């Protein structure tokens, strides 16, 4: 089994990165660290997707206009397109979460999630 993990070392590293990002989400109380952990999980997923598209000996899928009939093996372009979309969506979500953090800080003057819940609970009761 260890041999199979060593064969798929990129996917294994992506999965470990995902797990560590998830741990950061759970263990830290600071909001900015939670956002960074979230972004690590995103990166891990892109790594996993792009590793599925790699072919040994394949080249980047860009044709040379002088040698259009040359037969080269290309990597799979479909996961690359998906990851391109994903990177842009990831930066949008990060920006939105950071805007929410700024508003929360302005209201409650704290970055600690427990503190914010406590203050919000006290306010509503």
């Amino acid at each position, binding site marked *: 089994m260890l041999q199979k993990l060593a064969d798929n070392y990129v996917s294994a590293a992506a999965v470990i990165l995902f797990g560590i990002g998830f741990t950061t989400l759970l263990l830290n109380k600071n909001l900015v660290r939670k956002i960074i952990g979230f972004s690590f999980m995103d990166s891990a997923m892109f790594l996993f997707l792009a590793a599925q598209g790699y072919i040994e000996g394949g080249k*980047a899928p860009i044709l040379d206009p002088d040698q259009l009939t040359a037969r080269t093996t290309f990597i799979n372009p479909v996961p690359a*397109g998906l990851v391109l*979309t994903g990177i842009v969506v990831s930066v949008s979500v990060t920006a939105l979460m950071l805007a929410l953090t700024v508003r929360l800080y302005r209201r409650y003057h704290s970055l600690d999630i427990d503190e914010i819940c406590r203050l919000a609970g006290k306010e509503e009761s």
Partner: protein
Amino acid sequence: MSNRFRVLRAFFTESESPLDTDQIRTLTGSVPDNRPGDADMLVTHENNIRWSGRNLDNRFEKSKKRITAVYRVFSVLAAVMIIAVLLFTVTDLPSFGGVEKPTQNEVQQRYLEKGLEEGGATNLVANMILDYRAFDTLGESNVLFMAVCTVILLLRISQGDTDRRLREENDDRHFEPKNDLILQTGARVLVPVIQLFGIYVILNGHLGPGGGFSGGAIMGAGLILYLSAFGFARTERFFTFRTFKTVSFTALSFYALSKAYSFFTGANHLPSVITTGTPGAILSAGLILPLNIAVGLVVCCTMYAFYTLFRKGDM
């Protein structure tokens, strides 16, 4: 919710200070009275407050530490279990770099073989995302647009709120030294080069790596550098909120309408006026070049809008 539930919640989430009469009144909605049955959460009268407060204090500390320790142990355990289960799944995947995978199917073969004659771009990935799967890219541009609209909702200071606006400006000025000589000299050299490079990446998106997203982000970064070096007064001469609204809306509508024309003629097998041209030329690949320009403009405006909304609260 009932009084007892509210007091229990305060017990678990309250800080280390003991409850006094005012807090109890606001929590339970009633003045404490002589009821011996309610353990030591409600105090009876003034003499007992200090005694129950000290007891309460120890119990707060101990239970809080215990809950935190248990939570941490369980979260590390959950993370280790997730990693173990996923690693076990990874051993069943086909090996990295192999050819006999389920993802190598006829869809990919079609994109690689017929991509040049049906789309016309030599960059096969750009061909795929802007010709075969253009609808996905429209959805992605929409996600960017929605994100920036939401950030405007959250962070923009309205026009009538002048004291908040002045406070933000003073805050901003406190942290930035304006008229920094090194930054301005560097920006005078770098900003034209960055913008030119961004335009080059957008225009050559169908011939080499790059495309709308990366070129747009590079142009946005150039605008941010200009803003940081020269301040808001000079940047607002050519980029206001109205510019942002006009450019984003026009670019997205152009994308939607032109691709709708392409869908319409393709679905009904009608000949369309858009040709693919000779591969390798700048003006080739049908609609891919205009769509790249549209996406690049949206991304540039979005990146700049994020920065300036965070910094000043207005554009």
